[in-house]
């Protein structure tokens, strides 16, 4: 069991999300940045989708009431019993140990994984917290959480080298999208504006959606409203004021504003980790490219898992003036 001594910001239990209930209006929820979250789980030997803690900007202070292997994913200072330790690394905590997590230096969501995962009552098939509908609640100081039993899977000393960590420090991000499905609600000019302008993430952004500011996207004579139709995390809605809203993990399941595009699954975590004020440029890709990008990302995640399991070695290679990462089996 762990006990939360202080919780400075939004802290929730999340897992791979809640599928199968969208037809009842229940959002998917789950990790805002599934890339970092999965690596956090791999660091402690869990399956990628195991329930863990997601914090917004600043991490909690935690007391361990049992011995367990844990890891923190994020660009953040971490202390165990007051002594600085590394993020992206698994450690063994003993009963009575205290873990302190600082404020993220880049990115906006951080993850704390525990071997065996957080034990939780699954609601509609998932532990992901969606407070609006009473599906769990954000955590507060004094809360105690049970952990799964994983004496054999937890291993300390797994370490993800900086070169393999996601980098969320850039000042402007390029986010790839597939256009559609409601393109007839936009003028050609409007679509051009959307693809050629730099938008800024506004502070009115949360797990439900990221609101953007920038040049207004022009609607066609059909206007911004559509007959309410399904949407997905990543869908970009453009209401009457022409400012795009990107739907995130807690997005409603249907919406009544025309959708100009959808962010590809591989880039949604990158957007999720971009802070208010960050510049965003959208670039159109084809469905084939989107699938290739996602497959590549899935392969990278799988290689990282095998690397952390000690089955692969990672090499940094310079070729054609660029740096590449290579994974290879152990000799």
């Amino acid at each position, binding site marked *: 069991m762990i006990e939360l001594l202080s919780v400075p910001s939004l802290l929730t239990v999340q897992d791979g999300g809640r599928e*199968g209930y969208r037809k009842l209006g229940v959002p998917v929820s789950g990790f805002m940045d599934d890339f970092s979250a999965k690596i956090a789980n791999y660091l402690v030997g869990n399956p990628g989708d195991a329930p863990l803690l997601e914090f917004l900007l600043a991490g909690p202070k935690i007391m361990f009431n049992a011995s367990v292997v844990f890891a923190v994913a994020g660009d953040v200072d971490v202390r165990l019993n007051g002594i600085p330790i590394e993020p992206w690394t698994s450690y063994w905590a003993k009963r009575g140990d205290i873990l302190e997590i600082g404020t993220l230096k880049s990115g906006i969501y951080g993850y704390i994984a525990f071997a065996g995962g957080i034990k939780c009552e699954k609601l509609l098939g998932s532990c992901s917290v969606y407070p609006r509908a009473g599906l769990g609640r954000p955590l507060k100081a004094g809360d105690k959480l049970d952990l799964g039993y994983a004496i054999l899977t937890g291993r300390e000393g797994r370490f993800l080298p900086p070169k393999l960590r996601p980098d969320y420090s850039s000042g402007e991000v390029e986010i790839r999208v597939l256009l559609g499905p409601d393109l007839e609600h936009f003028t050609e000019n409007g679509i051009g504006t959307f693809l050629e302008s730099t938008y800024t993430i506004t502070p009115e952004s949360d797990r439900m959606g990221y609101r953007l500011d920038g040049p207004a996207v022009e609607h066609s004579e059909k206007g911004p409203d559509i007959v309410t139709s399904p949407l997905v995390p990543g869908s970009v809605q453009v209401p009457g004021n022409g400012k795009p809203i990107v739907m995130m993990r807690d997005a409603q399941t*249907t919406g009544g504003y025309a959708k100009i595009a959808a962010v590809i699954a591989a880039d949604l975590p990158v957007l999720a980790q971009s802070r208010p004020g960050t510049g965003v440029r959208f670039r159109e890709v084809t469905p084939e490219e989107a699938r290739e990008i996602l497959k590549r990302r899935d392969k990278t995640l799988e290689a990282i898992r095998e690397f952390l399991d000690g089955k692969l070695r990672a090499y940094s290679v310079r070729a054609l003036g660029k740096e590449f990462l290579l994974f290879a089996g152990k000799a």
Partner: protein
Amino acid sequence: MELKSLGDSALLISFGEVTDDEVNAIVHAVARAIEEKDFEWLVDVVPAYSSLAVIFDPLKVTFEEVKKAVEPLLGVSAGAFKGRKIEIPVLYGGEYGPDIEFVAEYNGLSVEDVIEIHSGKTYRVHFLGFLPGFAYLSPVDERIAAPRLEKPRLKVPAGSVGIAGRQTGIYPLESPGGWRLIGRTPLRLFDPSREPPTLLQPGDEVKFVPISEEEFVELHQGEWGTEV
């Protein structure tokens, strides 16, 4: 009918931009046909008024393959709705329906007329969306249609029954909202500990039944509705 991509993990099947019962019946028939196929790449099916999304695992299947797989299912006959009949008790007006007088005045009717017209029709649940358990119903009678609030309320209590244009619906959870509130039901519309968690489901037939304040208080135990 059109098949379009809705991001890299979903296919949108659209039967035009309409809100009528017949097209919605086709949407649900197609949704059922796809679910029954139990494709190994199928993640979720999300029906709306006149469109539905087929959510797939893009690592297992391509967009073109999904298109090919669902195309033969698009011709299924809608047949008759197989929805249940559900009665929703509603306490109309007063503090529970603070906008009922506006709806009456706006349409040149009495409050009693609004109640009679709203509860005099059987509505079809076209789909659930916006919030868990929020039902989009077939349109209300033109005579009681009313525009949305200019400034949405920050907090609409759970169970509130509202009108927006020709739409009517019930807020399953406390949330912000801009619909004109005409009453409130004591029934609980969403309960995550139940399976299924929503009282209403797509295809159900809903009838609003006016109740007194005494009945409202008596029922107000977060009760789950019963099938009739």
